[in-house]
């Protein structure tokens, strides 16, 4: 047991946990943004795959990985338009539209990945923030991450401010709670919803790009492996609060990090540790109960 605690005290463990939490944080906040506007984005898994594939494909050509992030975000915007546009009381049910999008993206990405083999590509290198990275204990954990991790936290702060403190954020939340009130104000509920869903989808797709560009993973059809569904379930549990998104992302990132480093000491099969996030979130769903149910507008 002491060996386990020793690893948990290592800065390297928590640095890895934050790196693994980054894609989840993008995914969770993107899903939260969509849900604030009344759309429970069942396409999250597909958006993750789209971002992971687009980011990988572009980074193979370009010298810097940033164009990969940009193209992943643009792909997310485009796919998000589909999710937002078909949503509505007369449209297909949200789970069906989302699963359709996911199946299409997954099959096209698998087809393309099969046709063109992945070449090595330049990943993001960790950036040591001057002075802060030299702090004892926390320096190498918090301030020696890839730019993606800083970007994720920055996005979370901006998004929290946008939703809570700006007229646009109010309109987005109104769109989720009562679209008719928005229409009565003279604003287009369709427009506001589509804006929020496209932006949220872009964030989820960037989360996918983190999977390939953050760790130099080549794209494989099984790379995303349910992270999108996991984000949906996490958002059902934590609701729209951005602080909880940070906590949840870090928790599941830490479980992912356990997966890779502690299995040897814990004397439990690696498969069970890999299952832990999913089991945990289902238990949390059971515990949270009806508070986790979608808002009335989202259920319509």
């Amino acid at each position, binding site marked *: 047991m002491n060996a386990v605690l020793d690893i948990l005290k290592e800065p390297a463990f928590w640095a890895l946990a934050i790196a693994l939490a980054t894609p989840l944080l993008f995914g969770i906040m993107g899903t939260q943004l969509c849900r604030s506007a009344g759309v*429970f984005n*069942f396409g999250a*898994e597909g958006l993750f795959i789209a971002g992971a594939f687009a980011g990988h494909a572009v980074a193979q050509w370009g010298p810097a990985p940033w164009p990969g992030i940009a193209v992943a975000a643009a792909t997310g915007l485009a796919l998000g338009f589909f999710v937002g546009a*078909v949503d509505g009381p*007369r*449209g*297909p*049910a949200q*789970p*069906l*539209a989302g*699963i*359709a*999008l996911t*199946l*299409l993206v*997954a*099959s*096209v990405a*698998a*087809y*393309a990945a*099969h*046709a063109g083999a992945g070449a090595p590509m330049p990943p993001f290198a960790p950036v040591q923030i001057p002075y802060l990275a030299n702090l004892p204990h926390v320096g190498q954990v918090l301030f020696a991450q890839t730019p993606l991790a800083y970007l994720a936290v920055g996005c979370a702060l901006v998004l929290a401010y946008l939703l809570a403190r700006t007229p646009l954020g109010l309109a987005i939340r109104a769109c989720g709670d009562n679209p008719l009130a928005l229409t009565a104000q003279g604003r287009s509920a369709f427009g506001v919803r589509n804006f929020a869903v496209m932006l949220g989808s872009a964030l989820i797709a960037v989360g996918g790009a983190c999977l390939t560009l953050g760790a130099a993973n080549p794209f494989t059809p099984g790379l995303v*492996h*349910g992270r999108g*569904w*996991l984000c*949906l*379930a996490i958002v*059902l549990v934590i609701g729209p609060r951005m602080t909880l998104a940070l906590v949840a992302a870090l928790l599941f990132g830490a479980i992912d990090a356990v997966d890779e480093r502690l299995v040897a000491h814990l004397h439990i*099969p690696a*498969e069970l540790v*890999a*299952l832990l996030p*999913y*089991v945990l*979130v*289902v238990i949390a*769903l*059971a515990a*949270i*109960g*009806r508070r*986790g*149910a*979608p808002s009335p507008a989202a259920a319509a």
Partner: protein
Amino acid sequence: MRIESRAQVPPALALAAPVIAAIVTLALAAVIFVVAGTSVGHGYKLMITGAFGSLPALRATSTHAVPLVLTGLAAALSFRIKLWNLGAEGQFLAGALTALTLGAGTIALPGFLLLPLVLVAGALAGALMMLVPLVLKVWRGSNEAVVTLLINVMMLMLLPALLAGPLAGADGQPRALAASALLPRFDWLLGVHAGLLIALVAVVAIWVALPFTIWGFMLRATAGNPVAARLAGINVDRVTVSVGLVSGALAGLAGAIALTAQAGSVTPGFGAGIGYAGIAVAVLADRSLPGILVAAIFIAALQTGIEASPHDGAPTHAADILIALVLIFALIAGTLVRFRLRPRQQVPA
């Protein structure tokens, strides 16, 4: 012109929507042929002969269609009451694995007893997979779509461990099915296995049960208006649970049939996509139970046809693209027919 929603969709238009979706999907198959570098006409010719052109082709298409009918039925039934069972993929695997456990020579029974036992156990395993999502939905109001999707992921993660561990034989390989647990094949059925008959019986049974049994009545009442059904004294939660269990059982049965249809074992990619393709079958069939048969044959024909035609990359991926496309187009067409264009009228002052 202005867009307005229709109070009711005309039956002809409702029928046309999935047909148009299928035609558009087939048209887009041309892109796959172009990418593979063949002429479009040649590609279509190979695709059609590959799906329907010969006796072996017809047999392959019907064999592919059998599990699709069952997973399609599973999806259609639960979608009817807006119970989003997206977990057919995991239920299918659970059914197949249970069938393998019982059918791999662990129980010494003659075939006419072993086979029904294996199939029923597979169906029960599928139903069991729905238990957690259903209990969470009814008791805690959780979103069953998310929970079933999470269970799919967990099943896929467990599969290699199960095949290497509890389901492995003495040689470390996954155990193979005993010959006595194989579904018989019939010459008068084009050489297709008896699972085809089971799938047909399942469709007919549901088709009869919906209008003629109390369960079917309660299901239709819940589908129409859950609040009214509750006020009329129908226990909507109980209907939800029963429909969910039947839906899971159908998907589990599909897995058991897919396994016992051929000699061999469960492999890591076994039946991948059949559960999700069932969603496409259900959406294409659009509330019609005979439509499920047509839709399942169409999707099976896409699979066998693309295998026979030129495609760049693995055939399953090419078929998966077409299946996803037909699902998307069916959803879009089904939405568009609920609206109409009407010339803008002069509003009297």
